[in-house]
């Protein structure tokens, strides 16, 4: 399989996303607003006590700053709607006639989009960094960062593949927006974006650690912020994360082949 065509798709994606640089910058600026809310809420919750569930205020705020950065580097943003649009408008037909793998093509575009959105998200964060700096507390042991690299890559794959699956639902449903927003609510909660999942009661935390949402955002963020305490736990997490990536990829392939059987390409 030649990779040149996907490299071209990646470069085109970079150029296309740079056109929308202001949209990303505005979105990132609003995220700083969210960060202000998080600081005020958790600052008030910590008032009068040193720690919550074994973590101090600095560690908790570091977690939320990390989550915010990761959202722009590895989250799927519009990929589900883009796949859906291409199916609904018939644009997908061109890919059926060419020697190109649609999943790989979309993944190339996803990587380029996240590079642009991630880089732009850093700008407003750099502006407020002097305010954040006194709170940031990252772990000092090297193994967390070693484990975080594959965890971040697998998280990005998981995020993209899930969004891709939602996009493919357009083969069956004309409108997927409600599915996507409903899933987003679940992902936001069970992915640890609203609160660190280790604040859940132990049995619920245990259950959540077997769900794919845990590995979308919480797992890499927890590694990077020292909330996963041992290399053994990190390895086990990486294993489950890999399983979910492969399972979702298999499901995406199934949706693609089944969906194409229903698809009707019309027009000249």
């Amino acid at each position, binding site marked *: 399989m030649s990779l040149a065509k996907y490299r071209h798709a990646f470069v085109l994606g970079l150029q296309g996303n740079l056109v929308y640089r202001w949209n990303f910058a*505005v979105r990132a600026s*609003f995220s700083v*607003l969210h960060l202000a809310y998080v600081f005020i809420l958790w600052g008030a919750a910590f008032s009068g006590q040193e720690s919550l569930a074994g973590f101090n205020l600095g560690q908790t705020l570091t977690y939320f700053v990390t989550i915010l950065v990761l959202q722009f580097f590895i989250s799927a943003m519009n990929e589900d709607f883009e796949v859906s649009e291409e199916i609904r408008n018939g644009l997908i037909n061109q890919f059926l006639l060419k020697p190109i793998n649609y999943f790989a093509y979309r993944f190339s575009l996803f990587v380029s989009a996240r590079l642009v959105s991630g880089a732009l998200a850093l700008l407003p964060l750099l502006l407020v960094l002097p305010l954040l700096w006194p709170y940031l507390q990252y772990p000092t042991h090297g193994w967390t960062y070693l484990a975080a690299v594959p965890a971040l890559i697998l998280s990005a794959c998981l995020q993209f593949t899930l969004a891709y699956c939602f996009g493919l639902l357009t083969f069956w449903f004309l409108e997927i927006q409600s599915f996507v927003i409903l899933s987003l*609510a679940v992902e936001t*909660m069970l992915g640890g974006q609203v609160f660190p999942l280790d604040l859940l009661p132990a049995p619920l935390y245990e259950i959540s650690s077997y769900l794919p949402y845990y590995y979308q955002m919480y797992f890499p963020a927890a590694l990077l912020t020292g909330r996963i305490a041992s290399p053994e736990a990190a390895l086990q997490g990486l294993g489950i994360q890999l399983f979910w990536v492969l399972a979702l990829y298999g499901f995406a392939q199934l949706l693609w082949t089944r969906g194409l059987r229903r698809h009707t390409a019309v027009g000249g």
Partner: protein
Amino acid sequence: MRAAQYLRIWLAGARYSVVRTLMFRGDFIMWSLVELFWMGVNLGLIGVIYQHTESIAGWGPWEMTILVGTSLLVQRLLMGFFWTNLFEMGRNVRSGAFDFFLAQPGPVLFMASTRKIDLDGFLNAPIALGVVLYAVHQLGLSPTALQWATYAGMILCGLAIHYATLLFFISLVFWIQSAKGVEGGYFGLNEFSRLPREALRGIAAVVFVYALPLVVVTNVPAQTLRHGIQGSQALWLGGATVLWLSLAIIAFHRGLRRYTSASS
């Protein structure tokens, strides 16, 4: 135009929206679930934090639930009455489709703001109110009929403030051609309405309590149920309502003068 005529026009729009919603029942159920889930996310956050602490800025778990429930109630009403209309306004101005409203036999702002209603927003409003009632019950409070009436009036003020701030920012589309990002900005700002007033200090208090009435919209009604009616607070909320409605209406009409229709 008389009030009865406004009501008749609004009812015609509402009837059209209901019929349209019932044509897409599956979509309606899904969107109702979406809103219910997001309400659950907000309440879930409060539930988890109070597993580990007894107070947030002096507010206990059920007091905080009244605050969050009030915020959700105002937001559901905004979704039900105005959300779709205001966001379509941004798109319509850009595309020129706003001509449609200029040709209507009624005030442009009224016609553009009330054409559609969203039933899923309304469906979840009683659930948000139920959350408030349950928290009031848990706290053992017994608000008087006057307190409830004042609370209802304050919720309407909150709805007017949210409508006005959204209209104000959407009206910028007359100048900048695109209102993209306003949605994210609205939800970002609305998060502050779920914070107790006492949690905000310094510049955050200046911005989110005094300059933008986000915290007032929810804290004043919640305090009315907790501690009774406080005249100065009610006046503050009423004043903020008049101020923001005036600002939004002026911004909209100033912007409308710049609008060039699609047919020109």
